[in-house]
């Protein structure tokens, strides 16, 4: 049932021009950044050869690319998630799901699953860029894998927050701006801790601080759990919010 709802969601995304626009824009910008980075590497390659302990091509290109990708997704995910529930509520199609023999959990997970599939596709396309370097260089697949795992967890969290914001309103734009605001806030939370040494609780909650280690190739289960918890929290909130729709009316 989750799969049914998810696949329909995915289909609807592709039926609107938004999906294609987002795919192409993200691809274009990331490709530009990627090529720029590769070019710089090429420029300094000869000097790197003479030095000791310099970054390899993966280490030079991938963290930078994924760092920028994360910012880009921060902008793009709210646009994708905004319509999930808000639009259905506005078009009164939510009734179809509510009166069908499916539970709220299935509805929420289905929608989340649908958007996640799309985002994974976006990630896959992004991953093809550094993978193309395989043709001319040897890659550090560990670093690459950890980086993309981090990014996947990160956008998973973005999507969960977006889904929740979408359940709050019937205006897609309101959902988008709230999602963007919430995510940006989560992202920059660590700025508050900059003056202090590490250990600041608020800074600890920052999304960025739990994404950065992945880019450095460090898989810390605490960071992974942070993302999973974030996703779970917002999915549960979404389910509760939709239930409240039925009860509150």
């Amino acid at each position, binding site marked *: *049932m989750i799969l049914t709802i998810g696949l329909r969601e995915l289909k609807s995304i592709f039926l609107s021009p938004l999906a294609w626009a987002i795919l192409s824009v993200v691809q274009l910008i990331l490709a530009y950044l990627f090529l720029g980075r590769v070019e710089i590497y090429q420029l300094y390659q000869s000097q790197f050869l003479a030095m000791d302990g310099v970054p390899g091509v993966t280490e030079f290109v991938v963290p930078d690319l994924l760092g920028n990708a994360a910012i880009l997704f921060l902008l793009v995910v709210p646009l994708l998630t905004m319509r999930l529930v808000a639009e259905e509520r506005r078009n009164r199609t939510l*009734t*179809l799901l*509510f009166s*069908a023999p499916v539970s709220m959990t299935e509805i929420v997970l289905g929608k989340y699953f649908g958007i996640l599939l799309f985002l994974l596709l976006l990630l896959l396309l992004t991953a093809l860029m550094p993978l193309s370097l395989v043709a001319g260089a040897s890659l550090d697949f560990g670093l690459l894998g950890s980086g993309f795992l981090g990014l996947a967890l990160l956008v998973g969290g973005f999507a969960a927050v977006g889904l929740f914001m979408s359940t709050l309103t019937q205006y897609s734009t309101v959902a988008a701006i709230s999602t963007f605001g919430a995510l940006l806030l989560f992202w920059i939370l660590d700025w508050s801790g900059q003056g202090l040494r590490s250990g600041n609780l608020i800074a600890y909650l920052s999304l960025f601080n739990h994404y950065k280690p992945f880019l450095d190739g460090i898989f810390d289960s605490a960071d992974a759990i942070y993302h999973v918890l974030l996703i779970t929290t917002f999915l549960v909130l979404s389910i509760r919010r939709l239930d409240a729709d039925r009860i509150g009316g």
Partner: protein
Amino acid sequence: MNTAALVEVKNLSRFYGALQAVKGVSFTIRQGEVLGFLGPNGAGKTTTMQIISGNLAPSGGSISINGHDLLEDPRAAKSQIGYLPENPPLYRELTVDEYLDYRAALSRIPLARRKQARNHAKARCGLENTGGRLIGNLSKGYQQRVGIAQAIIHLPPVVILDEPTVGLDPIQIREIRLLIRELGEEHGVILSTHILPEVQTTCDRVQIINNGELVLSESIDGLEKHMKSASLTVAFHRVPALEILEKVPGVNSVQPETNGRLRIFHEPERNPTEEILRMAVKKNWGLYEIRPARLSLEQIFLDLTTEAVPDIETTTEIPASANESRTEP
């Protein structure tokens, strides 16, 4: 009335904040029955339907659908229902086939049977030639049909239709009414509407809800009896003295009406028509019109839903159709 109840609603109530939209409503629907749900705007029709279809949680009371309690076992109960809300829940970006397949999947119809279910629903609703078209491009009438098709695709025992003929042209309205009658043969149908003739042509039973309370629950046959009031309308060229008419056996009182007609109230079991005819001929009153007065459903509806309920005498004075009353200067 020999089959078991498909839907059993007991003491249903619903609050919106402090406002109580539905107050202790109870009713049942049996198989092969079309129940007309009438009421003025804001009476609680749609709320009741949303509750039965599981879109709103009731504040109190119980609903059992084909033996499944809606609150305790919502999944089983919901699989027994097909619901068409006021605004059909259509995904405009899908084609009719895609949409119906999705709906079938949501109802857990196995993949192998989905095509058959879809074709069946399309045939029932006259959608055979629209399968590949986008729902957003269909006319309002066809969208409404898709809405109905979506409600019956899983062959639910109970079909709930909330104002299904709103915004349709007369031909489509007729077709939809026919379809509803057809559905009523196998399913239990709840039809909400505020078009009164629709109820008379399609329903087996009528319920009128006002201010959240059921004020009438009657079969159409029973309603017919309600509608025959014990009075006659007569018109003479040479009007006799009212006292003479009042002395006719069975007549209780006579009242002149505005347009020269007389209203004769009689005892329900003793119809004085024959006697009056005889006298009119004998005494040369020039009788040119005599007919039993009938209450229209509209009047019953107005009586039950208007706040200040007028007494029987004054209500029966209202001409049978609203148009007639417009003839007076």
